[in-house]
Structures are given as C-alpha cells and as structure tokens.
C-alpha cells in the first residue's frame, strides 16, 4: 500500500490551484475536465483527488488519466449534487482547486504475466481508463487483457476513442447496454451476463471492477464462483468523504478508512471487513 503525502507538507487540507485546459461534455450529465498538472504531482492509477470549489465544497473524484502517458490530468465528473453542479458551470481557462493524490491506487505488480479482466459500469470506466492505458502501454508485461464495459444506453458510453484505441492494441472489448436498441451493434444486458464469455484464465487472472455498487457486488460474487481467487478480484469502494486523509471519519467502515486504506480493496479484504453486504 502506497501512501502519499507529497505536495503539501505544511497544510493537510489546503488544495492547490489547477487550471482547466479543456472541458468536454461527454453525456448530458458527465463532463471531462482536463487539468494542468501541478508541479511535483505524482500519482498512480486508481488514486483520487479532492476537487474543490471555494464556496461550494469538496468532492472526491478519481483520476482518469494515466501517469507517464498523459501530461495533463483528466477527471470525469457527473452532476449529482451541489458541488458537482457548480463544477459543471466551469469553463476552460477557469481554475479549480485540487488536493491529492489520495488513496492507495490499483495493485498491478502481482498481475504481471497474468491475464487481466476489466469490468466497468457507467462512469466507473474513468478510474479504469487510467489503469487500462497504463497496462496497454506495457502490454508485453501482462497476459491477455479483456474489458467489459456496460452503459445504460448508447448515449452514455464514455471514452469511445480510448475504447477504439484499446481494441486496436488487442484488448478484447465487450460493450454492452442495459436494453437492446436500434443502431447499437454491440451486446446488451448486464455486465455480469458477459463475464463467462471472456477467454481468460479465471483461476490465475486478475480482475478490476469499477461501477455502481450493485454491479460491483454481483460481479465479485460471480467471478469468485467462476474460480477467481478473492485476492485477485480488485474493486474500488465509493464512500462519502470530507477530508480524504483518514480524519473526518465519513468513509470509515468496520475499522478501515476508505480514503487511506482504500479506495481499492480486494474481494478478500472486503469479505473480511464485511463491507460487501447490502
């Protein structure tokens, strides 16, 4: 587990100013913000930042870009509450304030040489994009790479450009939407319906799951039943957070702080601390 306290030794809660280089409206309620990376800001896939607007508040957002590949930093923000609504009003050239990177990040060292399965649902593709790009860039170090990406409907599919790039690079991609509709030539149904069609080794492979809570728990359970070791099933846990550094207590679940002990947990850990159950 990596802990990172770099960037602001003086003040734990003071965010840094970051310039917005570009804003892309991805769907009706999701926008991609491309930020100038502050100096000395080093992160790894799966880590998150606290994005803050003075006067509105702070929200935890996972980083969607990949260190070493992107010079800028991408964050994908869905409009769900007060702060994100204010964020959605910002335009390129504006500034927002960020704090981080926070959290442990995806473990991928142990997966070298193994097959990898990525399971994404909705905006869950954002943190996985960071890791998939990272892995695709070092493809020779890993086994087969597969991705199942589920969306509600065709208009909500995010990062299509990246997906096409991954296909080109040899990633087995399964795109699926909830209900089949005209003009959609990919699969339909929930992501869990496509798990067993993946041509990877479940016994030794690793899976990385990111999406809505229900999807995560169903996928974890199914993969485990298919024989994947619980330690190899990796997911991120979403929680209410205010500080991101294990102090405010909002994300505290059964002895673990999601912000500092997570947000990435393996199914084995989740079962142990009992946070999987509905």
């Amino acid at each position: 587990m990596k802990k990172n306290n770099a960037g602001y030794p003086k003040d734990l809660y003071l965010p840094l100013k970051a310039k917005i280089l570009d804003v892309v409206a991805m769907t009706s309620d999701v926008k991609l913000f491309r930020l100038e990376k502050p100096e000395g800001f080093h992160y790894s896939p799966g880590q998150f930042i606290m994005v803050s607007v003075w006067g509105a508040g702070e929200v935890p957002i996972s980083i969607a870009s990949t260190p070493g590949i992107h010079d800028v930093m991408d964050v994908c923000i869905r409009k769900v509450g007060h702060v994100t609504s204010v964020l959605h009003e910002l335009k390129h050239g504006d500034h927002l304030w960020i704090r981080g990177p926070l959290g442990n990040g995806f473990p991928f060292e142990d997966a070298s040489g193994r097959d990898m399965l990525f399971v994404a649902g909705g905006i869950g593709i954002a943190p996985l994009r960071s890791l998939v790009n990272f892995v695709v860039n070092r493809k020779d170090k890993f086994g087969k790479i597969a991705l199942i990406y589920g969306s509600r409907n065709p208009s909500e599919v995010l990062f299509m450009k990246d997906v096409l790039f991954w296909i080109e690079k040899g990633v087995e991609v399964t795109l699926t939407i909830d209900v089949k509709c005209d003009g959609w030539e990919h699969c339909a149904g929930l992501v869990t319906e496509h798990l067993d069609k993946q041509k990877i080794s479940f016994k030794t492979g690793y899976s990385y799951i990111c999406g809505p809570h229900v999807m995560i728990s169903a996928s974890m359970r199914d993969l485990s039943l298919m024989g994947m070791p619980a330690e190899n099933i990796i997911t991120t846990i979403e929680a209410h957070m205010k500080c991101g550094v294990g102090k405010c207590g909002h994300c505290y679940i059964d002895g673990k702080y999601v912000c500092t002990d997570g947000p990435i947990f393996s199914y084995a850990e989740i079962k142990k601390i009992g946070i999987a159950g509905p």
Partner: protein
Amino acid sequence: MTDYHVLYKRHLSYWLRQLRRNADLIGPLRSLEGDIIFSSIENIHEIELDCPASIPSPKEFIFPQKEEMYRFSDKGVAILSNSRKRIIFGVRSCDISSIALLDRFYGGLYEDNFYVNRRKNTVFISIACNNPDPTCFCLGLGTGPFLDAGFDIQLTDIGDRYLVQVGSCEGNNSIKGLKHIFMRPQKTDYDEQYEANLSSQSRFEKRITLDNVRQKMLEGRVDDSFWESVALRCFECGGCVYECPLCTCFNVVDWKESEDRGVRMRIWDTCMFKGFTKMAGNVLPAGKKILRTKRWYFHKLLYYPEQFGKFGCVGCGRCTITCPGRIDMATIANKLD
C-alpha cells in the same frame, strides 16, 4: 519522568495568576443552572476544584466544535490558524487519557496541522479524581481516577495541599521559577496520595469488565437482536458523539459571506445521523439505525484497540449523562463481556 512537588492550597491562586500572565487560563466554572463548563477564567476563586464531569468535554479547546480553516475570496486563500497559548486547569484524568489518544489519531502519517497547532500551544493541568461521579467508570479502563503518566501536571488533593506531579517539559515550564511555592514533598505526602487513590477506587458505583468484549465482537458472537434493542432506544440526537472526548469526526463546510468571499470550516459531525455516510445521489450505506449504533460501539470497543492498543472509551460517562434514551456505555460493555 515525573517530578514531585507539594503546593499548598493557599498558594494555588498565586500560581494561577502567574500562569495567566503568558497564556489564557481556562478552567471549570459552574453556570447559573448548575452545569459545569470549561471557560475563560476571570475570577480565579470561581474555579470549581471538585466538581462533576463538564459537558462538553475539554476536547473543544483542541478540536473546536466549529473551526475556521481557510478564508477565501476572489483574491486568494488565507490559512486561519490559532496559536494562542492556553493553560487548561482542572481537567479530569479521563480527559487527559483521551487527549493522549487524540494526539496519536491526529498525528501520524497525515498530521492534522490545525489540531497540532492548537495542541502544542495548550498545557493541561489535571486534578486526580478523589470523588468519582456515579456515572464514571474509568477505573475499569485504566484511564483514571489517578494517572501514572501522560499528563503535563497532575494535582492530587491531600487535605490542605496538593501533591504535584510534573510529567512533561510543558508542565515543567509552568512551575519554573516558583520554587518558593512548589516544595519538596515529605513521605507522608506520598502516603496520603496513595491513600486518596485507594479510597477513590473504592468509591466507583459503576464497574466494567472488558476482558472478552473484543473476542466476542470479532467472532460475531454478539447477536443482532442485542444491537436492535440498543438502537430502539436511540433518539438519533448525536449527543453521545458530540460529548465523547474521543470522537473525532467532522464535516467540512463552506460558508459564503458574500458572492466572492467566505470561510471554509470544519464542524463536529456525528455518525449517529444517517446522512453522515450519504453518497452522491442520496445513497445511504448506513440507513438503518442499528448499523450506526453498532458501528459506534464496534469502533470504540474493537477497532480502536486494534489501531491504538487502547479502548476508544475513557469511561467519563458523558454519553450516559447526555443520552435521552438512557443508553449506558458501561451497561452495554458489561452485557457484551
């Protein structure tokens, strides 16, 4: 290190006046309605020297209920820090024990600069409890009524004088140059302190045992129906959390004074509220009261020991005093054991 001195009670106000020269002096006062509250001392003779537990606990001086962190405007952001020197007099042993744990919680890898800043400017002078309240149960937790270490200065009332134990550099600074009132103790002084300690220990009305609690919780041997019965009596007022000297949760709020400026502050928060864990889109991971009650006790009695080696309760009894549903930490702990 512990240095021993003797201070005659008639010299106490002289000493406190000396201390007040360089710092704010805070101590327990009795309000018109009879409540004990820690507050700035105007008249030293108003200090309550032998009084029941204060509500709220003195944690508010190092972790205030509302702490302004940053002031923002269109021109930029300023860090608001408080580095007033303070001496808090008349603190109880349990509260000293809780502060030792708070120091570890707010310190560590991610050091909370706001807490640390207040803490390093605060000296605590505690009075060992000769007369525990009927709601106290620190004895079973090893957090009182007398402490062996962890204090800056501990006073023990032995008749017309105090036995003074100095346990830190800050404590030492507080008696520096006052040799004429801090005298060398005699053997009888030590004996009397020992007697006072023994007699205090015999006066506890509440006793708790916690030998098996952790094991039972860990193995899931506590039935949910037990937590159901606790949750049923919970009115969700959050009082237990606000008054607990060890509860550290806070919420961060931006307060706009006008369109272009305002303050970011943190305020105490409580995990007894269902909105505490609420996620985007109104998803409530701990929507049921039983989950929240259970979590509080699990944190205090199981995870705290795992993380810090000590129970997350110092036996001050404030949650019991505050609870309108009469939920009692000691009773629960005993039932669990």
